[in-house]
């Protein structure tokens, strides 16, 4: 592609523009396909980004949290909690340690046991919430010291349940990447097919132009710019519509964060302009290829 061709594509081509009919079903088809596929591509990208954010949250928010569970006779529990707190505060790699209040523990258990349960009568263990530093403590050594100095104390760094969750999040991310790739490829193919079909509908225009002395380059310019701009306009419309729909999704609290987090954030926004340009790029090359093929059919 020459520099002059790029310039004409961007700034317009007074002679070639307008030679191809601007209206009709075939004209609509390229724009509509491009808009529909851009809509799906944006939705897929936003879902992928949301899955990535979710996976990131799961891996970071719980990565440095741990719990010490202390069980034993009720009379000794307070003393054991104090001993455990002292030990934890003196341990390198522990940022903070805080015993959950009775109210907090009750709130944790109520969803499982229901209201009105005689909480005091149950052998409920006491919990200490621990925040680790980025490097974290030497967990094996800490477990041994807790077992030796605080009977009934168990250090739980959540790795047992966090690991499958992270695996699931990783799987979701991978699925999202595959989905985005497929949708973008499908968008390119759909725009290509629409451009080719539209070109076939304009075969008589190609023939007429050729017979009155138009060169191949002129005919290609006339079709390529028109179809590229249609695909770009359709892609822009689809992208904007998808973003409006995503923004219009009902917001909710933290438990619905996955849904409310569907709109792109940060660098995710940079991917949005790529969608209509991908559609335009697909239309550009497919129209060039299809026009060249159509021209080969006539002398």
């Amino acid at each position, binding site marked *: 592609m020459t520099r002059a061709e790029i310039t004409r594509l961007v700034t317009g081509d007074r*002679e070639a523009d307008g030679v191809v*009919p601007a209206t009709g079903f075939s004209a609509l088809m390229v724009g509509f396909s491009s808009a529909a596929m851009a809509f799906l591509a944006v939705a897929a990208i936003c879902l992928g980004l949301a899955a990535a954010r979710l996976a990131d949250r799961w891996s970071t928010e719980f990565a440095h949290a741990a719990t010490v569970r202390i069980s034993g006779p009720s009379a000794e529990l307070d003393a054991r909690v104090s001993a455990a707190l002292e030990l934890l505060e003196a341990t390198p790699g522990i940022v903070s340690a805080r015993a959950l209040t009775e109210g907090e523990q009750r709130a944790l258990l109520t969803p499982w046991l229901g209201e009105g349960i005689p909480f005091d009568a149950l052998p409920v263990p006491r919990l200490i919430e621990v925040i680790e530093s980025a490097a974290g403590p030497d967990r094996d050594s800490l477990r041994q010291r807790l077992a030796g100095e605080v009977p009934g104390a168990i250090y739980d760094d959540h790795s047992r349940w966090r690991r499958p969750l992270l695996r699931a999040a990783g799987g979701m991310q991978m699925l999202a990447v595959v989905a985005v790739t497929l949708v973008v490829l499908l968008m390119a193919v759909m725009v290509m097919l629409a451009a080719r079909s539209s070109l076939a509908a304009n075969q008589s*225009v190609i023939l*007429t132009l050729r*017979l009155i*002395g138009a060169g191949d380059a002129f005919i290609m310019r006339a079709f390529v710019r028109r179809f590229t701009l249609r695909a770009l306009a359709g892609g822009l419309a689809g992208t904007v519509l998808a973003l409006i729909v995503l923004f219009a999704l009902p917001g909710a609290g933290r438990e619905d964060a996955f849904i409310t987090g569907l709109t792109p954030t940060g660098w995710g926004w940079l991917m949005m302009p790529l969608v209509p340009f991908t559609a335009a790029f697909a239309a550009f090359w497919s129209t060039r290829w299809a026009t060249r093929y159509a021209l080969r059919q*006539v*002398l």
Partner: protein
Amino acid sequence: MISFQKAGFSYGIGPILEGIDLSLAPGSFHFLTGPSGSGKTTFLKLCYLALRPSEGRMLAFGAPVEELDREGITRARRRIGIVHQDCQFLDHLTLVENVGLPLRVLGRPEESYVDDLADLLSWVGLEERGEALPPELSGGERQRAALARAVIGSPDLVLADEPTGNLDWEMGQRILRLLIELNRLGKTILVATHDLNLIRAAKSQVEARVLRISRGRILTAGAAL
């Protein structure tokens, strides 16, 4: 200008045309006649390089056709004006835009030929219809517009395929007069028609050679038309 030496054409299932030996000399006027399906349109397609002979030799403006690449064909075709029976306009463009199309595809800005365009439309009597779309034109207007489009690029050769086929006698005569005027300006004219009355009317006004297609061969017809 265009010459054939033992040329023939076949779509692969028997020859459509064979043994063509003739040349269209500069400034000459030819009628090509013969029954429907005899190969008149095929011969015209050979002349405007939409087909290449499948045998023999053909020269277009001195160049062997088989040696012309697509660019060469484009250049040669710019020296040929074509009037099709169905006119082949772009229906979304106005008559003025359609007539100016052969210059537009050369990249010439409209300002550079707008006066020629007005003169040409006046010559064919369509100066009032410039902004009309092709579907809004009558058969006669379409044929005259097609003739204007064929000559705007000042071609050396004008080919017309049944230009009066769908027209009444008076309009047919009008088209014929325009073609004769072009010939007097030095253009080579080849008109394919099965209308013998048109040929008789022309022969009283211009020195025309009549070519008759019979059984795939092109013969020079005698005076008994």
